């Protein structure tokens, strides 16, 4: 990864964490003092490198894993902030990336009952919750939205 793309990626992630939401391409361009086109082209390269995931139609961020640019069924609370995660794995990753404890809320895909987990120092307080990955690891990036 080229140094400029690494800086773009790190600024994008830093802004995501600071704003509590996905930054727009314009916001990242302003932060870096570069053109909107430079950000959009750099994001395309980062998308190809699996460093983030773009919504090509909207021209904006879909995922900066573990953070989601859209509202999802995996909601993560850290202090007074609320985040959306792309999946269960990412939901645990948000507290890990921020280096803080977290509360994860979602619904059971089987019964739709709510699941609420508190993760303290990396340890979840629910011993029964069970994580399932359908797609083998070698095929995750065939369609990262559906794994």
């Amino acid at each position, binding site marked *: 990864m080229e140094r400029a793309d690494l800086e773009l990626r790190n600024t994008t992630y830093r802004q995501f964490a600071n704003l509590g939401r996905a930054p727009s391409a314009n916001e990242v361009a302003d932060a870096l003092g570069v053109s909107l086109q430079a950000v959009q082209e750099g994001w395309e390269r980062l998308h190809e490198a699996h460093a983030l995931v773009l919504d090509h139609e909207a021209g904006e961020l879909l995922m900066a894993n573990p953070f989601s640019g859209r509202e999802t069924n995996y909601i993560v609370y850290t202090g007074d902030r609320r985040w959306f995660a792309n999946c269960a794995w990412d939901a645990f990753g948000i507290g890990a*990336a921020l280096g803080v404890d977290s509360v994860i809320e979602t619904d059971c895909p089987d019964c739709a009952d709510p*699941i609420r987990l508190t993760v303290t120092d990396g340890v979840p307080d629910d011993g029964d919750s*069970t*994580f399932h990955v359908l797609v083998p*690891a070698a095929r995750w990036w065939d369609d990262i939205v559906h794994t």
Partner: protein
Amino acid sequence: MLLFRSEEHLNRWLAGRAPGAVLSARQLSDLATAWWGDRLASDWKPHTREQNQRILEGLGLIDPFWNLGP
């Protein structure tokens, strides 16, 4: 990548279909910490495939299901 209330709920949801991989919430938290823990580090660099495979192996995820491929 879904979270169920329990393995019983997962099995009911699968309805006889073959499962993929199943982890406890604690295993998932350990995996997420190892996988995502450096994402906001100022000196972050992309993980290589080998690095990521070592993370999986270090957590005992050595089944072919967890092989990241070429």
